[in-house]
């Protein structure tokens, strides 16, 4: 599904990613772990198409298509979804309106009919309920006045409604209590199917107790320094990043 080859990227001439190789096959969940400043969020943003990062080398193919040549909205239409580490507040934009506009934009590109307000609300209410979110979240402005946990859950709600092929979760676990963490994990697990993949970016092993990954990659200094099975997360927890990175070097 996702093939990253020798990907390097910089922001304002400062190199951040320095040759990443990573393949996420169909139906698999991969975790990317690493210390602060290792380039985890940069990787997420570059994959989603944020313009302030310059790709200096390498390629990314998504279902065989050149991902880096696509606009952010084309990437979303192709099935890519980024759950933001810091979800953006949109004052004056109602959450329901935002979600319906996004869903219908995606449905149009897939040649599906648009949902009217009633059809959409039925779907959105069901998902809201499943994620144990208060229903008034749909009436509020996007992320405005949301607590940290509510913002993260709102990302998961968007993911549940937009049903991506590849979800990138950028530290969706940070700032969540254990109950919220479980809800987020259930949201991801509910999407697990042979044609769904996820890249779970996290600082801590905790989330991976609930979303069990097929593979774990350790990112340090803009490179993948180790890859392994789920047990690698536990090893990291025991040794710490410093020990692991030193070993790899």
């Amino acid at each position, binding site marked *: 599904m996702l093939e990253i080859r020798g990907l390097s990227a910089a922001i304002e001439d400062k190199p951040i990613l320095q040759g990443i190789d990573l393949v996420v096959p169909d139906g698999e969940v991969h975790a990317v772990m690493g210390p602060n400043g290792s380039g985890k969020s940069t990787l997420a943003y570059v994959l*989603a*198409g*944020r*313009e*302030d990062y310059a790709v200096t080398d390498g390629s990314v193919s998504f279902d065989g298509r050149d991902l880096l040549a696509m*606009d*952010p*909205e084309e*990437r*979303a*239409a192709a099935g890519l*979804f*980024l759950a*933001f580490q810091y*979800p*953006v507040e*949109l*004052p*004056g*934009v109602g959450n329901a309106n*935002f979600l319906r*506009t*996004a869903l219908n*934009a*995606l449905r149009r*590109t897939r040649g599906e009919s648009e949902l009217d307000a009633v059809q959409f609300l039925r779907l959105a209410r069901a998902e809201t309920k499943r994620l144990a979110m208060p229903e008034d979240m749909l009436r509020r402005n996007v992320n405005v006045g949301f607590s940290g946990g509510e913002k993260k859950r709102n990302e998961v709600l*968007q993911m549940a409604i*937009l049903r991506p092929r590849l979800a990138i979760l950028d530290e969706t676990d940070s700032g969540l209590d254990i109950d919220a963490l479980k809800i987020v994990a259930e949201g991801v697990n509910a999407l697990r199917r042979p044609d769904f993949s996820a890249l779970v970016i996290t600082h801590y092993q905790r989330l991976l107790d609930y979303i069990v990954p097929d593979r774990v990659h350790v990112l340090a200094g803009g490179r993948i320094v180790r890859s392994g099975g789920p047990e690698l997360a536990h090893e990291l927890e025991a040794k710490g990043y410093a020990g692991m990175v030193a070993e790899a070097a």
Partner: protein
Amino acid sequence: MTVAVQSGVAGFLARYDAMRDRLPGDPRRRSAAADAFRRAGLPGATSGRREEAWKYTSLRPVADASFAQSLTLADDSVLLARLPSIDVPRIVFVDGEFCADLSALPAAVEFSRFAEHGEFGTLARPDSEPLVALNTMLAQDGAVLSVPAGVDAGLVLLASIATDRAAFHPRHVIRLARGARLSLLELSVGDGSYLHNPVFEVQVDEGAILTHVRLQDESLAAFHLSTLYAEIAERCTYDSFVLNLGARIARTEIHVRLGGAKGTAHLNGGQLLSGTQHADLTTVVKHDAPSCSSRQTVKNVLGGRSQAVFQGRIEVARIAQKTDGYQMTQALLLSPDAEIDTKPELEIFADDVKCSHGATVGELDAEQLFYLRSRGIPDAAARSMLVRAFLAEALEAVTDERVRSVLDRAVEGWWERQAA
């Protein structure tokens, strides 16, 4: 077929000389106004003279334009198509003249024409406002509306439809007696290059509530120069919202005097401009009684090389203790060549008051735009959503759903013009 081409200050004066014997109302007021207009001219049109109130807006293009009295009447159905499709009573003027065929008069409002009585009000100041002098000199028609005490007259549409090369100076009077209510939707539209120079006098008596929503969607070649005076009595509310979308040059000048205790004035608005449009919203709020509040939120969305002006003056008299004055103007610049000039002026003589003002200028937020696009919303639609969101706070002040839908459609039309 057209007659009597006129241009510049001399052209307007010549027109007055030609028709003075046929104009309604007190001829002495007319000739005094003509003298004032002759002295003042059109602001910005005389080189070397700069008035503070016209610091950012020059009417030289108005002085350079030529107008004519059109004798060609447009088809009624064509004109009707210019009006919003909401089913409310309407008072329609075409090139400044009342048009009974297009109107559906409200039952609960007493209506007469300025052309019949020539009744000038007492609030307008032709001696200090050149455009009011021009209006007073040449006004031929207008709506005189009165809502009797205690009557809720509901929603009424007051529409002006203009045709190419017309120049007209309507004189409108709106009076609400004690405890009356009226919701007035004022619409200005037209085709071609013309001058619409209305003067409004508004009087709101004790406990009355006037909601005044003004949609200026004139032709992009037109001049829209509007001056309004409002006198607000005790425990009254004058709730106004101006949406400036059209016109080559627009000036909306509003003078409100809060003359009785516990009065409220809302002078909210939005200005959406593009190309080389220029729009100027100038307000003067006089707090002349205690415990009144005035609130202003003005949002500007500016594309192309457009220029918006907001001048807001709040005067608090010594007697006006417990005044609550708030003023906020915000601009969203969609292009590096767009410009906003904001000038707040607070003049406070009372000591126990709460007055604040603020101004912000910014561009569309890159992070917000990326967030929307990352969800699959195409760039143009994402920009449109953010612009609407920016306007939403101001538009929320318009609570009548029918009126709101008219404004929403106008904003939609404006946005489609940008995308085209």
